[in-house]
């Protein structure tokens, strides 16, 4: 039977996400994909998955799930933890340390702490049939995921590979949170904004408002004034673009953003800081700092090196043996002999 996780409680908003589908934007199809692609990739690589394998993105609240079919190895990539109700006893599942769930064992995850999302990564990757090249969920158009929608109780997410080892993997400590301002490249429509607006963007404090979702987040703070009507012929959007409608209230565009937009864009968050903004929650404050595109490229490459360095610190630890003491004790005696390797596991 196939290894899988049967969802008992889907939390608040849990969706299957991978690195998205950028290839159909010219048809109006948003990229979607993980809000925090860095954590997704790190979690996947730790489990030996393709870095872009699909996982469960849990927003604000973790899920409850039960292993079904065959043992499943999971890892939480992000600030979330929980309990495993095992056959013998309960054990803790902390972030960045893999654990094997045997069939029937239940996972109960708590809230995501101080961040918008965390990923439940499955060894082998989540087996979800791709739509237009990706399993990422776009609920608005019913694309991706198990059925074009967020997870519901009763869904079973299969794992693409079976478990053969009892070893677990862990990072010695959770990855450090990035500090300092969010870096942006000014433009493309910088000339639609007053000097005061640009100065406000780069000097003032902004706060994520309650009006935030996978499409984008509105920021509270100074209004950014335009030099001319805030209306442009629709042009293409990229992840992290900060668009400013007539109201002057900036909106950072995220993964499910519309592919094109008719509002001027004052600046665009750099690639290295996209995972950081994906983790922001309403009420969190931020500042912006301008960098050149070349500096952004340098920072993106530096971040990739840091990911590799972090992976190099991962430790393999001996997990629970595949044949447990409990299972041995429960095996029926046959002619007074117990064969330790005779099992139906």
């Amino acid at each position, binding site marked *: 039977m196939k290894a899988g996780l049967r969802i008992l409680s889907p939390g608040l908003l849990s969706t299957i996400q991978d690195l998205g589908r*950028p290839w159909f934007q010219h048809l*109006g199809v948003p990229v979607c994909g993980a809000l925090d692609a860095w954590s997704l990739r790190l979690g996947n690589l730790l489990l030996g998955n393709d870095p872009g394998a699909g996982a469960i993105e849990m927003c604000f609240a973790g899920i409850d799930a039960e292993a079904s079919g065959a043992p499943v190895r999971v890892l939480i990539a992000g600030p979330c933890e929980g309990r495993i109700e095992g056959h013998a006893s309960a054990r803790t599942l902390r972030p960045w340390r893999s654990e094997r769930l045997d069939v029937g064992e239940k996972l109960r995850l708590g809230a995501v702490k101080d961040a918008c999302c965390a990923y439940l990564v499955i060894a082998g990757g989540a087996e979800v049939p791709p739509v*237009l090249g990706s399993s990422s969920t776009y609920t608005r*158009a019913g694309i991706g995921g198990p059925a074009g929608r967020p997870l519901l109780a009763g869904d079973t997410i299969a794992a693409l590979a079976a478990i053969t080892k009892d070893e677990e993997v862990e990072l010695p400590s959770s990855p450090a949170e990035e500090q300092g301002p969010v870096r*942006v*490249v000014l433009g493309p429509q910088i000339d639609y904004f007053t000097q005061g607006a640009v100065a406000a963007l780069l000097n003032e404090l902004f706060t994520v408002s309650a009006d935030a979702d996978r499409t984008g987040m509105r920021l509270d703070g100074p209004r950014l004034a335009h030099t001319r009507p805030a209306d442009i012929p629709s*042009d293409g959007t990229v*992840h992290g673009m900060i668009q400013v409608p007539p109201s002057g209230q900036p909106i950072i565009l995220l993964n499910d953003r519309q592919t094109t937009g008719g509002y001027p864009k004052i600046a*665009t968050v750099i690639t290295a800081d996209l995972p950081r903004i994906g983790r922001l929650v309403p009420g969190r404050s931020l500042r912006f700092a301008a960098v050149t595109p070349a500096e952004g*490229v340098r920072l993106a490459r530096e971040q990739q090196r840091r990911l590799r360095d972090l992976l190099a610190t991962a430790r393999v630890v001996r997990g629970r043996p595949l044949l447990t003491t409990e299972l041995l004790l429960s095996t029926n005696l046959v002619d007074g002999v117990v064969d330790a390797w005779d099992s139906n596991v």
Partner: protein
Amino acid sequence: MGAGAVFRTYPAGDGGITVELGSAIDFLTSRRAFHLFKRLRASPPLGFIAALPTFCSLTVQFDPLVTDGEAIGAAVFAMAAEAADAIEEPSVRWRIPVCYDLTFAPDLEAIAAQIGKQPEAVAEIHAAQLYRVYMLGGFPGFAFMGDLPEALQAPRLASPRLTVPAGSVAVAGRLTAIYPAATPGGWNLIGRTPVRLFDPAWEQPALMSPGDEVAFYSVERAGFQSLEKRVAAGHVEPAEFRIR
């Protein structure tokens, strides 16, 4: 300066550039953007991820781990310089049935009042024009078509509707479009069509492509409903609405 000459290029973050080919909604410019888009896809530079052709620009997205805006910009400039002057004749024409019944067209009377005519006249004027697709965007399969005759040009609604019915035929400014699904919408609704605009299972997931010609024709409620049933039953192929 070749016909595909580039106006200006702006960085769109560190993983994108916006190539501006004009400054206003202009059909010839949108064709240039689409041609450049096709050329990039046919010979993608190292690190190229995707491109979006729009009314007068092309946004190019790339991987900053392997390339940068300068290299991509140079590749785009070279392709634009090679552009032929002739814009080829359109190859595809669609004929889309629309029911302009008032129950499907909550803004039809307002538009009619604006030009001092009856709602039926608005429907006639809308259906008499041959439109061309400028670009797709905003939602899977949403095609921006133009140009509307001046009489039908009205601004978007002051307050967008939280949801418009799927298949709603709409107008705003010089453009007309069909909402592919029940989404929020700020355009004026003047009719409805049962034709599907998007299906990931199709070989080409979107019905329309930039440059396509589109003609609308009026059908009565009964015709609309019978086609709607056939579409829902999966008995309708996109080719049924293609006339060239």
